[in-house]
């Protein structure tokens, strides 16, 4: 029976036509221009209305001087009118995020008013205790409201509210609808009063955010453990806490037509060169897009060379590192909703450093750097060198080792490159699985995979043991690279070198190294050559491969062209009997 029915449904054309799958595109048909048209039209009407009101007001205010001009806006005297336009703007009643609470200010006579705020972005306690309570209950206490009739009711009212009635810690008058909308969206509450062309925004921001946590990718053993969160203001505070100086500037720009993301540009005035700050701001202001919701996205808009394999800026989640870079004259960009600061400009070498280098005493810090340099070299070239040697330059391997490799390869059916690629793929799988798996079992998976798989692969004579060693060391080395993005780039370059090594042995490896170096040497990050201070050499080669003692790092890096080169006295440890005598003393004596 049921089979027959379903067959009938298939045969019945009217039924099968009705049952169309949902599609946005509506195949073959033009977009519903009418619908869009009306939408656009109402939006445009709103905007033009506002504009016209504003122009009228401007004409009105023109003779009254500059101050009056600044205060003109497009809000009307009528509370109802304002609320209506606001609702229209925020698509009420479909939109449930905007809350409008109408009430009366307890003045004599009571003034109708409304408080508007975005649900979820605001702190309800502040609204109840510091806005509604004083206005509704306490306003009649001994204020002589309404006795200054000659000033006109409108300006008087809001001025009074700001000065005497409203205990909110940040309250600003607003004159036009657009800024009202902006304030609402950033989490402020906006008060509208009957008979007033001025709205008042009260700071009630309480965006949902997590508390300050520990860094995930830039862990250190020795050093502070706080990391940036998604809250931009908290991040700025974390940095500012480390640089208690009025010269530390946080400029806030807004990026994104829809996202209106706050982008903070932090720098230290009198250290960072103004040219750099201007350039950073120029690049950020040039972004005209809908949504920028993360520092990684912003980074792609402002990088020098988007095609580059290695990152052109440094993204860090560590406030201490950010503060250190600021003090060297770099600019840090903080993007709201993103737990990473963008440091620019950078050099290639700074990508290989961690803040721990500076927390340890200098011999230890230097050793750490060397280990890391070895890691990047190994991770870049070990597979390529191995393949080149066993394919083309067997004479280099010590005889015993060579015979061992040959004897283990005897049963392996695949060419060595295939073996290597296979193991590499397995390794990448382990890595990927390890990062996605919940924290608790992640290490277990890695361990099981590496031990069991390796052992089994050797037993099954699919790979030779030396190959496992090569892949494992390479993988380990790539984990020792402190920067995730660099690690990624190095992986790509490794395959490039591997391909060349397979085709032409050491000759190919040398070609690859040359090409990569020229590529890097041609790179720039915000006008700073990528490989400086090594190439081009600028000043002494300190703080690159060696981490000099902190008390010897008297100057900021020369390639930053900072306004103020000196960062500490020439002789800091003046109490140290071993310290050289200051020069001025000799002259004085």
């Amino acid at each position: 029976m049921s089979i027959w029915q379903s067959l009938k449904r298939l045969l019945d054309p009217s039924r099968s036509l009705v049952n169309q799958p949902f599609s946005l595109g509506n195949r073959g048909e033009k977009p519903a221009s009418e619908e869009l048209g009306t939408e656009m039209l109402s939006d445009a009407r709103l905007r033009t209305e506002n504009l016209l009101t504003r122009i009228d007001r401007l004409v009105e205010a023109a003779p009254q001087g500059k101050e009056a001009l600044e205060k003109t806006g497009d809000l009307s005297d009528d509370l109802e009118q304002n609320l209506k336009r606001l609702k229209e703007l925020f698509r009420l009643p479909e939109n449930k995020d905007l809350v409008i609470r109408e009430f009366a200010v307890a003045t004599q006579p009571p003034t109708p008013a409304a408080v508007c705020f975005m649900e979820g972005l605001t702190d309800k306690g502040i609204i109840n205790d510091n806005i509604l309570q004083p206005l509704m209950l306490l306003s009649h206490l001994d204020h002589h409201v309404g006795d200054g009739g000659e000033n006109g009711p409108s300006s008087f009212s809001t001025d009074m509210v700001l000065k005497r009635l409203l205990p909110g810690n940040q309250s600003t008058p607003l004159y036009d609808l657009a800024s009202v909308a902006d304030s609402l969206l950033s989490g402020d509450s906006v008060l509208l009063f009957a008979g007033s062309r001025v709205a008042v925004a009260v700071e009630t921001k309480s965006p949902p955010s997590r508390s300050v946590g520990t860094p995930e990718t830039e862990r250190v053993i020795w050093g502070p453990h706080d990391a940036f969160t998604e809250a931009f203001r908290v991040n700025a505070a974390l940095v500012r806490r480390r640089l208690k100086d009025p010269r530390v500037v946080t400029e806030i720009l807004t990026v994104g037509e829809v996202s209106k993301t706050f982008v903070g540009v932090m720098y230290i005035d009198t250290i960072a060169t103004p040219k750099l700050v201007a350039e950073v701001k120029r690049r950020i202001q040039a972004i005209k897009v809908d949504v920028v919701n993360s520092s990684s996205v912003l980074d792609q808009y402002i990088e020098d060379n988007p095609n580059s394999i290695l990152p052109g800026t440094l993204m860090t989640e560590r406030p201490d590192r950010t503060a250190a870079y600021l003090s060297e004259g770099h600019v840090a960009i903080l993007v709201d909703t993103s737990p990473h600061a963008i440091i620019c400009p950078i050099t290639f070498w700074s990508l290989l450093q961690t803040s721990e280098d500076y927390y340890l005493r200098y011999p230890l810090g230097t050793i750490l750097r060397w280990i890391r340099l070895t890691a990047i070299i190994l991770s870049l070239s070990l597979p390529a060198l191995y393949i080149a040697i066993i394919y083309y330059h067997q004479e280099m391997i010590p005889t015993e080792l060579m015979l061992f490799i040959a004897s283990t390869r005897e049963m392996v059916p695949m060419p060595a490159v295939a073996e290597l690629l296979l193991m590499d793929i397995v390794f990448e799988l382990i890595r990927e699985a390890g990062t996605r798996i919940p924290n608790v079992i992640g290490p277990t998976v890695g361990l099981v995979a590496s031990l069991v798989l390796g052992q089994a692969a050797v037993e099954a004579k699919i790979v030779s043991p030396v190959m496992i060693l090569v892949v494992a060391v390479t993988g380990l080395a790539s984990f020792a690279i402190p920067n995730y993005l660099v690690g990624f780039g190095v992986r790509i370059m490794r395959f490039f070198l591997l391909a060349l090594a397979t085709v032409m042995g050491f000759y190919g490896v040398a070609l690859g190294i040359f090409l990569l170096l020229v590529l890097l040497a041609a790179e720039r990050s915000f006008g700073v050559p990528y490989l400086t201070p090594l190439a081009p050499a600028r000043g002494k080669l300190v703080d690159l491969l060696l981490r000099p003692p902190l008390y010897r790092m008297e100057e900021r890096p020369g390639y930053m062209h900072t306004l103020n080169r000196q960062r500490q006295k020439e002789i800091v440890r003046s109490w140290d009997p071993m310290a050289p005598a200051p020069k001025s003393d000799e002259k004085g004596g």
Partner: protein
Amino acid sequence: MQPYDGHIGVQEGVILVFALLSAMLFLQYPQFLVEVGGPAGWQVALIMTLGAMLLLVPASALARRFPGMGLAEISREAAGSVVGPLLTLLVSLWLFASCVLTLRSFTETFITTILPDTPPSPLMISAALCALFASYKGLESIARATQILLPLIAGGSLLVLLFSLPRLDVSLLYPFWGHGGVPTLMGGLYYSSMAADVVVILAVGYAFRDPGHLRTSGMVGTLLFGLGAIAVVFVLVGIFGAPIASQNPFPLYNLARLIYLGRFLQRTESVIVMFWVLAALVRISVLLHASAVTLSGALGLPQYRPLLFPLAVLLIPLALLPQDFLTSLRIDRDVIRPLGFVAVLAIPLLLWLLALLRRKGGKRHAT
């Protein structure tokens, strides 16, 4: 005239000149020095160095007279718009010929040493591609890459020399005066054309901020190259003896073959060849860049980059032209090197005299 190509400081200049010239020490040139001087080959190298530094005098005088200009602009200025470009063209052709022979010699040596079954064309194509890429990226990038590569290359070669020292037999360096003073002197002066490629820095003179930088980098680079040559010839003769050393077209490679540090470190010559490839690439890139720049200057083109690809394409068949390795060695020794005197000595001297006669440059800039 040229588009912004970065600037070259003293350090970069020195490194560039040194890398450009010392790549030749991997090739057959030390052999020639030994051939002339016998056990006293290092004296030939010494005289060669002094001669090479003298060769630089007219070029640096010219650069001083026309600061901030490349060879093309200088010759146009000094010798007029007809003769000037012709002279530039000569230099450009010589540089290109040197580039071609370098490519050929290096390819041959790679084939003889590490890749015996590989046909020359893929090696040449890949090397030419690399050089094309590097010179497209500009001299500044080449100089910076060299700055990082040079410690590797020089360190590797120095290690070879150091590890060879235990085998060094000082008596092989005697009789002290070799074949006598006159052959040594003449040979040294003749082979000072080994350093003729240094005319490159005059060709890209516009990249130097200061003519003094040009002179210093030329002189110091050549001096370092000379010291390297002396060291190589010294060790070469001290280990192989003059008769074998004078028949040895791959000096450092053969030294590396002798390294024997216990059972685990033997036959490291392939690693040396790797450094050698890097040195060759730097040299070919610089020469290609310089010949493209001078050629575009001679033809009055505003950009050198469009010329790069045709030149690189031309490079390969020309490099394949000599019949065999020995022919290319002979062409280099008997034709190209002597002509180097024209490029680095005669033309700058002529230009300088012309500038003096026609009262161009120098004083006018001073006032």
